[in-house]
């Protein structure tokens, strides 16, 4: 299972891929899975992060809705929630070499 | 755990016996190490003896004893470890072994077809496996490309037969 969060990361969110179509989704406070990172629940601190992950994993087994559930580091900025790593930014928005594909059509300036 | 032998669900007449366990009456399956240590004792009981080979224990190790073994069990420690497919074929095709070749351990139902083709005539399977599931798995592919142990005619020779028939008819 992928772990793309730094030890000691302050803010984290939970992501996964939807089983039926593989689309990247984020765990929301209402225990839903949104395609938008802006709807993700952000956990602060290690314990909150672990609790969030445990909640998310219910949707893998036995939930059978998503795959590859894991925590990743985020930042809270003036422009909303941003992924900290290049990898998660690409997952959030889409391939950097095809700006016309993926969700980046809706997200302005995500890849700087 | 259930036992499928020659395509049918049957009661298991064999007992797996651990290395440090006392030998019960009847047909027993022991490890290679136990066989090597207690061969004479096991054979002197007059009941069938089987040896279980782990991944890494090749059939050549018991080749000279095969006429005294009624069963060879081949272990799949994880479904991914396919060594036993080769072991089974060697038993059948190299050593001409006619006793029971049993698959033991972690096998997926989607491997049943391959197991049978490689010469396994007995499979220890999970309780969820039903006769319908087994039949479906075995019957997935009508005509295999390769020759193998199960004697099914491979596509190459089927084509030749058809071509020969066509020539005769034409």
């Amino acid at each position, binding site marked *: 299972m992928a772990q793309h969060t730094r030890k000691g990361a302050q803010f984290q969110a939970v992501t996964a891929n939807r089983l039926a179509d*593989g689309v990247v989704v984020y765990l929301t406070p209402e225990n839903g899975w949104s395609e938008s990172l802006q709807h993700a629940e952000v956990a602060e601190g290690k314990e909150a992060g672990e609790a969030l992950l445990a909640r998310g994993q219910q949707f893998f087994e036995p939930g059978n809705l998503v795959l590859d559930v894991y925590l990743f580091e985020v930042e809270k900025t003036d422009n909303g929630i941003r992924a900290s790593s*290049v990898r998660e930014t690409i997952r959030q928005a889409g391939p950097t*070499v095809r700006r016309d594909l993926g969700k980046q059509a809706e997200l302005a300036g995500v890849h700087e | 755990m259930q036992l499928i032998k020659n395509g049918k669900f049957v009661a298991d007449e064999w007992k797996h016996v651990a290395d440090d366990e006392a030998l019960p009456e009847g047909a027993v399956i022991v490890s290679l190490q136990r066989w090597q240590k207690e061969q004479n004792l096991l054979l002197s009981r007059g009941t069938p003896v089987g040896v279980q080979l782990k991944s890494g224990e090749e059939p050549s190790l018991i080749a000279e004893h095969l006429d005294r073994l009624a069963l060879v069990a081949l272990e799949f420690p994880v479904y991914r470890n396919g060594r036993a*497919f080769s072991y089974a074929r060697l038993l059948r095709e190299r050593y001409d072994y006619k006793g029971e070749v049993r698959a033991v351990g972690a096998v997926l139902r989607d491997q049943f077809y391959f197991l049978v083709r490689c010469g396994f005539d007995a499979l220890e399977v999970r309780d969820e496996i039903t006769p319908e599931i087994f039949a479906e798995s075995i019957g997935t592919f009508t005509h295999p490309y390769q*020759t193998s142990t199960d004697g099914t005619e491979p*596509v*190459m020779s089927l084509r030749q037969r058809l071509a020969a028939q066509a020539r005769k008819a034409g």
Partner: protein
Amino acid sequence: MYRYDEFDHRLVTERVEQFRGQVARRLSGELSEDEFKPLRLMNGVYLQLHAYMLRIAVPYGTLSSRQLHKLADIARKYDKGYGHFTTRQNLQLNWPALKDIPALLDELASVEMHCIQTSGNCIRNVTSDHYAGAASDEVEDPRIISEIIRQWSTFHPEFSFLPRKFKIAVCATKNDRAAIKVHDIGIQILKNAAGEIGYEVWVGGGLGRTPIIGKKIGDFIRREDLLAYLEATLRVYNMQGRRDNAYKARIKILVHEIGTEEMKRLVEEEFAAVKARGALQLPDAEVERIKTYFAAPAFETLPDATPELDAAIAREPAFADWVKANVTAHRVPGYAIVNVSLKPIGKPPGDATSDQMDAVADIAEKYAFSEIRVAHEQNLCLAHVRKKDLYAVWQALSAADLATANVGLITDQIACPGLDYCNLANARSISVAERISERFADLKLQHEIGRLHINTSGCINACGHHHVGHIGILGVDKKGVEYYQVTLGGAADETATVGDIVGPAFTEAEIVDAVDTIVKTYLDIRKDGEIFLDTYRRVGVQPFKEKLYAAH
């Protein structure tokens, strides 16, 4: 090309039925992901960064126009209107939904295509020379034995759960365009003094974490014995290959650990036993039957001199450029081999839109006997084009943005999907390739530089074949930042060589300048007639190292 008969058809449709059942059981939860994963992998379904990825098999890189049209349709219907041609001659779609895949497979089956064994620890696509049937010094069409091997390896009951994946490549010419020496098994087709066909067998080549050039274990395996020999080799590997560590489980590690001599001995022992049983002897009748599918198309008798071609070359410089780089000699007078570049400047290497696939399929139908080849360099190829049709072909390709005149030149790069798509990647590779191609876009400069292969991989798995690039670039992750390590002097052909690491990695901002420095150094020190690889082999890594790290 090979046409399915009733047996092949039934096998593929039965497989689709099987997978349909497996997908349904997965979606309902009856199958866990852990149980489903090996099954979906054996059907070419990966989970990547953004979505699933589906790898469609293109056996030995040969497609008909009908098949390519269908791939275009499928990419439109189930994906985002494009696909990526890979370094193993397959096609990848990056956005299919799992629930749609059974229907997608049905459509593939309708044109005799599938995704069988394009992933998983089994025998993968048998790859070969994209000039098969057209190259003048070919011993015989390598696709004949490739097709036979394909059938033998499909759903092989003994070899579907190998220690790791297994890749086979076949070559029939002295110039190796199939990279056989960096495959698990590489096969060189030969003819002996008596004119009989036989095979040289190389084993244990591979890239990835531990790049190794293959070792020869079979000098001349007779045609009728090849399947028995392959079965013996696979059996030794299946039994003795390591199962304890996925990074040490390829056959190259086994050969390295026990030594070539011991490997040869084990294989020959097994081979003798398999041969003795006789079951795998390849009947002549079967070879002849498969041969008929690869018979030469109905070539016209033409003079090689083609005045209208010469006139067009003289008249139009852009056409002349294209002929110079993308067109190569054919064994039949009056014909030529056309390489279709999928490396437009500043765009992802190896991608083609559905419209472009349709365009190539149409052009092939009209001018190339309806046959298209996929090159492992991620380009396409029309193997049999009349010289007098070259101008029309060029015009049609230009209209579809497929006539970049750069085949074999520095902007004809290989790149893996990298961090833009792939779950395993540490760094982006496509964007680096794009910027390099923009830096060297000038065609005059490209011709001045000459043949230079740049291969970029986004991680150590080396799907971009960076180890065997003349210049190899490997993306690495240093504390969350993308860095690029450079190797020099690799080669994938019959002179197969693993490149040398040149020094510390470069940042994303530095890498294109680094490549520029390497090229400039080469241009400064080369002797007449030397391509980059020749110069490197003459002078070694030192001159390049000095120039690259002078300022550091």
